[in-house]
């Protein structure tokens, strides 16, 4: 994204609208909103050249809280709205904010085609694995067995994995982050903004009213380190509280191994952002 010649220094405040934020107290959306406001000033794009497009859902209220241009469109259609806007106004910085239901249930087709067309837009999917706004029905990312308003006996459909879907459409930028991992989240948002082409980012977002603690394993103090791996280009895939775990290829299937015990860093998979074939992206 081209940065302007002389720019007034922007602050997160410059991107905050005058509208009162209306998410439930404790909602993960607040943190994502905060990171976004922190990242935007670093991009060198003024608020008036930035547009947030969303569908319908709690997450999709996002544009109202940004002092940029914005469209709170209809359920599932944000990628299409953004496509039309970007085609006719390529110089604008266009962000799509969507939820797991908005993007993958009713909006799956538009998401798929936005990704394949690879226009230079950024799609941020707030995945709380539930329909928040409509008060707690299951979504395409709800896990098997999850009990919700519409599945009192637990979900029986296999969930979709947003990144797999995106890769199946040959996305040129995919990433995942966490509402509470603000350092990693803001880094990912910045990288997404900088990528030329469609950037697809899934953010695990806690819905503390209808699906509280869905990502405990990835956010909880003592489980976090052992269950998440932060990919870095050119670095081996090492993780674990005491950084003693890694991922290596056994034949053609990846497996988790313990370091030491005859396994050295060089045996591990290295993350290569540039690889053309997404086979193991």
């Amino acid at each position, binding site marked *: 994204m081209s940065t302007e010649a002389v720019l007034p220094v922007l602050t997160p405040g410059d991107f905050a609208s005058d*509208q009162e934020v209306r998410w439930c107290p404790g909602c993960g959306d607040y943190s994502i909103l905060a990171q976004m406001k922190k990242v935007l000033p670093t991009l060198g794009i003024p608020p*008036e050249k930035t547009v947030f497009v969303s569908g319908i859902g709690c997450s999709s209220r996002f544009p109202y809280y940004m002092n940029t241009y914005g469209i709170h469109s209809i359920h599932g259609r944000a990628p299409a709205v953004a496509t039309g*806007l970007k085609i006719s106004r390529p110089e604008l910085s266009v962000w799509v904010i969507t939820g797991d239901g908005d993007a993958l249930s009713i909006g799956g087709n*538009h998401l798929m085609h936005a990704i394949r067309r690879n226009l230079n837009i950024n799609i941020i999917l707030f995945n709380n694995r539930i329909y928040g706004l409509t008060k707690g029905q299951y979504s395409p990312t709800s896990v098997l067995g999850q009990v919700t308003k519409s599945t009192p006996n637990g979900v029986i459909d296999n969930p979709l994995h947003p990144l797999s879907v995106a890769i199946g459409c040959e996305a040129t930028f995919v990433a995942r982050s966490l509402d509470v991992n603000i350092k990693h989240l803001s880094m990912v948002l910045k990288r997404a903004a900088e990528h030329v082409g469609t950037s697809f980012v899934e953010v695990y977002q806690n819905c503390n009213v209808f699906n509280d603690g869905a990502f405990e394993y990835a956010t909880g103090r003592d489980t976090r380190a052992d269950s998440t791996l932060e990919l870095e280009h050119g670095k081996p895939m090492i993780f674990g509280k005491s950084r003693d775990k890694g991922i290596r290829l056994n034949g053609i299937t990846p497996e988790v191994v313990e370091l030491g015990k005859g396994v050295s860093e060089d045996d591990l998979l290295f993350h290569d952002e540039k690889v053309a074939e997404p086979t193991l992206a």
Partner: protein
Amino acid sequence: MATTIRSKPVVELEAATVRFCGDSGDGMQLAGTQLTNTSALAGNDIATFPDFPAEIRAPRGTKAGVSGFQIRFASTEIFTPGDQVDALVAMNPAALVTNLVDLVPGGILIVNKDAFDEKGIAQAGYKTNPLDDSSLDGYQLFPIEMTRLTRLAVQGLGLGQKESDRCRNFYAMGLTFWLYDRSLEPTLRYVDEKFGKMPAVAEANRRALRAGYNYGETTEAIASQYVVQKADLVPGLYRNITGNQAAAWGLVTAAQRSGCTLYFGSYPITPASDILHELVRLKNFGVRTFQAEDEIAAVTSAIGAAFGGAMAVTASSGPGIALKTEAIGLAVMTELPLVIVNVQRGGPSTGLPTKTEQADLLQAMFGRNGECPVPVIAARSPADCFDVAIEAWRIATRHMTPVFLLSDGYIANGAEPWTVPDIDTLPQITVKHPQGKENGEPFLPYARDERLARPWALPGTPGLMHRIGGLEKQDITGNVNYEPANHEHMVNLRARKVALIANDLPPQEVAGPASGKLLVISWGGTYGACATAVQKVRDQGGSVSHAHLRYLNPFPANLGDIIRRFEKVLIPELNRGQLRLLIRGEFLVDAIGLNKIQGKPFAVREVIEKIQQLLKN
């Protein structure tokens, strides 16, 4: 062709109607188009009616595969391609059996004799060969061995039999051109352009064309030739144009006159696709076309483009429009300018994709959730699609609202001569975009002008950042608002905004006396049949007038007064009475309907009969 030495007597006609029919593979649409263009160049007024089968190419020789193209050319002004044909060219039995009904008694009937073999005759459902039994005695029958003669003509060019037979339509054209004393030049030129790269094929087509022409010249069988003198149309540069082409060019023109870039988001569907096909070839006018993944993406992407300041247009036909209805509601709530073109086809559901109908009017009026008013206008003829496209964008921007433009399969595919206008002389469409306020006072996206239109502020403008969406808006600020009084105010405001457009419209005109026994009210593609019918009855002294509506929502302000000055009102429609319901509901007049739902336009005769019946009692 002043040069030809006429070998046979020449009969002069005021108008002639010819129909080519044959297999989808026989190139009948091409034959029709060539005769059309040639006649247009000859200075005739023309009207055409192509009629495709639903299948791309049904099996050879089947009725399902019959494709037809009817053209009428005249030395006087005409409004329809004619109820019946004076000359029918049938390339096979199936074409004959399905088209003969429309040939006038004693009419000219040219058939490809070679196609009347046992198989072909059986496929058409004939018991015996109609060329041999006396069933065609009522016509001037010319059975010609087109296949054999065409093969002969192209011999020695090294073409396979299949390729040779593909030239048959040129043979048929040649013969017809001779029959109506038409020049071969335009078609020969077309052949050069089209087949330049394939010299053998080009030469074959040329030879077939000439062979057909010479056959007419030489054969004893055909006794005389016909000529239709040029019509004295208003002088100007004419070209022959279809409704879909005219719509496309009208949109491009509107974009130019308003200084917006045209964004056309659509998903292919018969019979609307040709608008897309036409626009993709006009990229050099800065047109941005987007073939979306579906109709919902087509319209929502257009809404995104409209927010960005483009001239946003989406086009489809009934089933696709149904999918757009939720998004059109968003356009109404966000009050963005948007043109929605519906090229109507036979319904309901998938219905009759290649046939015409007018049954989507109420869908355009009411096919959305909530109180969701949208202006609706309709084109009356192929060339009128150009003007109406411009008018749609004028209304959309002047009043900041989505606008429905209704066309139909009949005028979309039909053609007529059209005076190519000097773009720069066409009225400008003034579009204003607010600039950021100096004094830093807050921008009010839902403040309004005297027409109740809101400002169209564009992303990129400093100081005007705002958010819009589908939730109810607070008056003036445009913020989300759930207050009861505000909601009622906004619902009524949106309705009033559309109603106010009436003040902007030209008063409704009436053809014929301003009062009398009967008023015929029509809209859309039935204009030609209704205008002609009313004129003819009035010529015979009938007290009947005609009001053709371009504006269906809102109605012109004076429509009520007009209606009250007549004893009876007749509303002919290609549906079960959709405009009739609106007129009855609004004016409480007992309007009578003439309704035809056959996927075909009205025959002038049908309208005349109904008028006469109503004038009698």
